[in-house]
């Protein structure tokens, strides 16, 4: 059993790579896609064998607390800022966010659910606007990525989303990408095998096999080949030394 965030499932990642894995190894993988917090909690309860999420701090804490022996990089994609067309042409993310905060004319929808995406959004506000936004234009909705995009589409609002969910999202309405390919918008996923010393029933061997496959060349290629509407969703990065070394310019996915 893999506990994972909804974003990976919504983007169709598993539908495309799991059949390959199962065909090669005969191992069946069951994915439970839930919010980041819940996914971690499920894994902490020993109800999953593998945890695949995208919030580095939580992941490191998971390892530090002894729930997993090791964390592996698997892939990354990036966050993007989507919304309706506006007259304003920002030169930087800093400028854009401050424009939102200053005018208060544009609805910005925050997931408000402590998910990886939400945490990243908060970090951005803190970094550029030095404070968390308040006011009617800033809506904290406490929902998943899909629901957030549905709301943005319904009210012509702006929101931060991961590219995978965005590409496979079917209700875009008037929304388009407003800002992308920013160093600050990188979204790395990590994978961990739940420690079988802690939960003897965890199928750690099979789980390890799965993780090994994911970071193997075959798996990485499979991940790199995941496509929605002809576009690549995820960039495999298991073999890179450190993500910091990557630059926005060799941005992947390619547009």
């Amino acid at each position, binding site marked *: 059993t893999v506990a994972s965030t909804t974003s990976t499932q919504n983007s169709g990642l598993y539908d495309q790579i799991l059949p390959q894995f199962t065909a090669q190894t005969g191992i069946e993988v069951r994915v439970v896609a839930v*919010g980041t*917090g819940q996914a971690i909690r499920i894994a902490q309860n020993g109800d999953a064998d593998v945890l695949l999420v995208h919030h580095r701090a939580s992941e490191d804490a998971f390892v530090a607390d002894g729930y997993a022996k090791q964390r592996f990089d698997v892939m990354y994609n990036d966050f993007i800022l989507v919304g309706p067309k506006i007259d304003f042409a920002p030169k930087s993310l800093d400028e854009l966010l401050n424009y939102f905060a200053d005018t208060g004319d544009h609805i910005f929808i925050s997931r408000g659910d402590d*998910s990886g995406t939400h945490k990243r959004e908060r970090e951005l506000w803190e970094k550029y606007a030095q404070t968390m936004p308040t006011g009617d234009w800033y809506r904290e909705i406490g*929902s998943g990525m899909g629901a957030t995009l549905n709301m943005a589409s*319904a*009210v012509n609002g702006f929101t931060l989303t991961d590219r995978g969910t965005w590409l496979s999202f079917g209700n875009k309405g008037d929304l388009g990408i407003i800002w992308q390919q920013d160093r600050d918008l990188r979204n790395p996923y990590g994978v961990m095998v739940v420690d079988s010393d802690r939960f003897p029933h965890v199928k750690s061997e099979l789980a390890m096999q799965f993780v090994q496959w994911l970071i193997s060349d075959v798996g990485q290629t499979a991940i790199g080949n995941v496509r929605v509407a002809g576009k690549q969703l995820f960039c495999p990065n298991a073999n890179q030394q450190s993500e910091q070394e990557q630059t926005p310019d060799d941005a992947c996915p390619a547009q």
Partner: protein
Amino acid sequence: MDVISKSIQLIFSGDHDLLQIVLLSLRVSFTATFIASSLAIPFGALLTNYDFTGKRAIMVVASAFMALPPVVVGLLVYLMLSRSGPLGEWGLLYTPSAMIIAQTMLIFPIVLVLTVEALKPIKRDYSHLMNALDVPPMLRLRTMIWDARFAIYTAVLAGFGRALAEVGAVILVGGNINGQTRVMTTTIALESSKGNLELALALGLVLILLALIVNAAMHGVARIGQRYQVTRQ
């Protein structure tokens, strides 16, 4: 247990946010139950009293609609009220009104079907007298509803329970916006998705306590005037 102490703590914290959420939950579910009942009870009485072709079909459809998933109702209302939808101009999406509309649609079939069932015994007992006195339709419906009110309470409570418990519809059309459309169930869903399972459970406990109070009050009300609902041999 941890959950219980947490819920007690929650209740007595007098937390302003929690209070607001609780009040909105009650307001939305009460209003939806009120509207759905105001429509479904008279309609159910009509169905009970008049036979026509297609009546059976209506009953089958209504009872099938008890299985209407909240998410589907939510989607329907969303598409209606969304900017590009037919009623988009009203600007109701992501307001408590939208939540009320969705819940009303959701529980209408439930209250309807259960009202029809609740009225059957009274029809059995009363229809001959009504026929003999040639009671005009409106009075007939009113009389039957009034004298079967103790059975109808259950129909209304079932509808209210469904409204208070559901999350799929309100989250879609309300959006779970902090301070605006956040209700008990959406908060529970949110906390559980954050992995705060104990907090979610504690909120669930608070919700059930709320339902308990409402139900106890209704049962209390139902005692009044029940002395005429006796039988003897």
